[in-house]
């Protein structure tokens, strides 16, 4: 881990006696070099991340033509619209359900892979990670085709069992199910890999001790595996919540927010308002609603990073 001791001033010497002559200039040169090396990074983050983030706060207070300051006008307008509340509800349903199933599936499948003899794990892991490797825009096209209203391969298969055609993307609730399904399909392999790595780092002795104490498999998971993996589960869940809340590709390609705006997320709705309807301030106001989840994540991660910094 990086040593994160903040130095009070620039020329605080770490080892004062190491060099005799030109100590000050040498140290000064080192910090200047270091600063120059990070300068592109600072510029990039400052100009293309921090500034736009603040700029979106400003944009959200303008009217559509962006000439007049309207204060909270955009937000008041949004709060009055039913579609906005649909989007809030759908974003929460989508993110929470999808993340829950991604975590669950990842955890379960990681155990199956872990059970298999070590020399065969590579092959299974390789196959199971494929959904994560394919660009989501491309794989979502395959799902769109699988969900096609007249030629759906799923419906063909289901019809063999006498189950009627399912309106995968035509009906609001089925469409909600479908976008979540695709998101879980795409994201679960990531959790699988994370949890598999974490499972391997749990010392085998702990399981042996538990087995000697007469623990059954459920107790082994509950009292050994889960506590050992608590951190990684928390972090991956948090990350995934952010990414899933901010999802764009899947919903955009599968439903474009339809039917009747029932599957819009913040990102797709902001895109529709800001780019397609040309109301950038309103779109920016919508995307700002992703801030709360980001803020929560930032607090947790900052706490974690400082903790790790102290450990190092």
């Amino acid at each position: 881990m990086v040593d994160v001791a903040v130095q009070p001033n620039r020329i605080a010497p770490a080892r004062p006696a190491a060099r005799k002559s030109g100590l000050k200039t040498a140290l000064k040169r080192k910090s200047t070099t270091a600063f120059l090396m990070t300068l592109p990074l600072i510029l990039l983050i400052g100009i293309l991340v921090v500034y736009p983030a603040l700029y979106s706060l400003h944009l959200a207070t303008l009217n559509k033509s962006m000439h007049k300051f309207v204060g909270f006008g955009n937000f008041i307008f949004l709060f009055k619209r039913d579609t906005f509340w649909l989007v809030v509800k759908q974003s929460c349903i989508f993110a929470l359900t999808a993340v829950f199933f991604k975590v669950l599936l990842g955890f379960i499948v990681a155990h199956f892979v872990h059970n298999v003899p070590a020399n065969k794990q590579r092959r299974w892991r390789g196959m199971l990670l494929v959904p994560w490797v394919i660009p989501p825009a491309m794989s979502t096209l395959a799902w769109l085709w699988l969900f096609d209203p007249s030629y759906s391969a799923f419906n063909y298969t289901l019809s063999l069992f006498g189950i009627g055609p399912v309106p995968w993307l035509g009906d609001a609730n089925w469409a909600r199910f479908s976008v979540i399904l695709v998101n879980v399909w795409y994201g679960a392999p990531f959790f699988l890999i994370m949890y598999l790595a974490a499972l391997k780092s749990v010392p085998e002795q702990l399981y042996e001790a538990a087995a000697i104490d007469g623990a059954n498999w459920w107790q082994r998971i509950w009292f050994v595996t889960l506590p050992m993996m608590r951190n990684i589960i928390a972090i991956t869940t948090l990350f995934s919540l952010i990414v899933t809340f901010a999802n764009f590709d899947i919903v955009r390609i599968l439903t474009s927010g339809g039917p009747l705006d029932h599957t819009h997320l913040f990102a797709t709705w902001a895109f529709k308002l800001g780019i397609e309807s040309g109301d950038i301030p309103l779109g920016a106001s919508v995307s700002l609603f992703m801030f709360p989840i980001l803020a929560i994540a930032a607090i947790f991660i900052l706490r974690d990073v400082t903790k790790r910094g102290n450990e190092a």
Partner: protein
Amino acid sequence: MSTLAIDKAGPSRQVKHGSISRDRAWALRWSYFFLILFSIMALTPPLYMVITSLKSSAEISAATNPWWVFHPTLSNYKELLGSSQYLRFFLNSAMVSVFVVVITMLISVPAAFALSRMKFWGSATLATGVFLTYLIPDSLLFLPLFKMFAVIGDWTGIQLINRWYVLLFIYPTLTVPFCTWIMIGYFASIPKELDEAAIIDGASWLQTLTRIFIPVALPGLIAATIFAFTVSWSQFLYPMVFTTSTDQLVLPVGIVTTLIKGDVFNWGQIMTGALLGAAPPLIIYAFLMDYYIAGLTAGATKG
């Protein structure tokens, strides 16, 4: 700290006898059963892409079993690879991704070196800040960025919107924070004695970076490169926002906007296009799976 360690075989288990081994055998059987099931689920969409890409339009619209190809044909591939528009998308994607990888590495490797080894005022804050930047999603920034580049265009007359190279400015915001972060991790895992020896031998900081850190942290560098490439290759929202003319589009947006538009969906071609578009990341993954996974796990376990 070593993130590549996950690829080693798990701790070997002793062979036990009696009921435990019988339990193990059953657990193994069930594991295989479920793994096969989950693999089928994971591979169905990509396999269906392959199946559809081998079908002619006539076979697709005929109500035959969709899971089987009765008259395989390569006409979709021939048509797409002969279409200058599709090749243009592919070229745009390739140029954007390669340039973004180069830009990302030029920015993040020196920065990670400075942040992990040369402490200076604010370096710790900056390292944390880099990580927080990685969390800001693209869907929060695309509108202000779009407006920013429009304003720049109005002020300076340099038109960047609707040019593929505008993506070279924007994609690094996605790749640089993560790559810097994982490189900080890799560099920090290099023993201090190594660079101290180099400094004593009279190496400059730059020489320490290029002669010692980069060779030693090469696995991390490869992992970061793969990450930057796959992110640039699959990005969808930014090109959707910033580029509209067909000759400026990158692959994912190109397929979605040009092949899907119109009344008749040509699914054979869409699936072929999507499959070819998914090929570069898949090929990289097939050959460099360990690095790919190392990069994946390095990011979050260090978070």
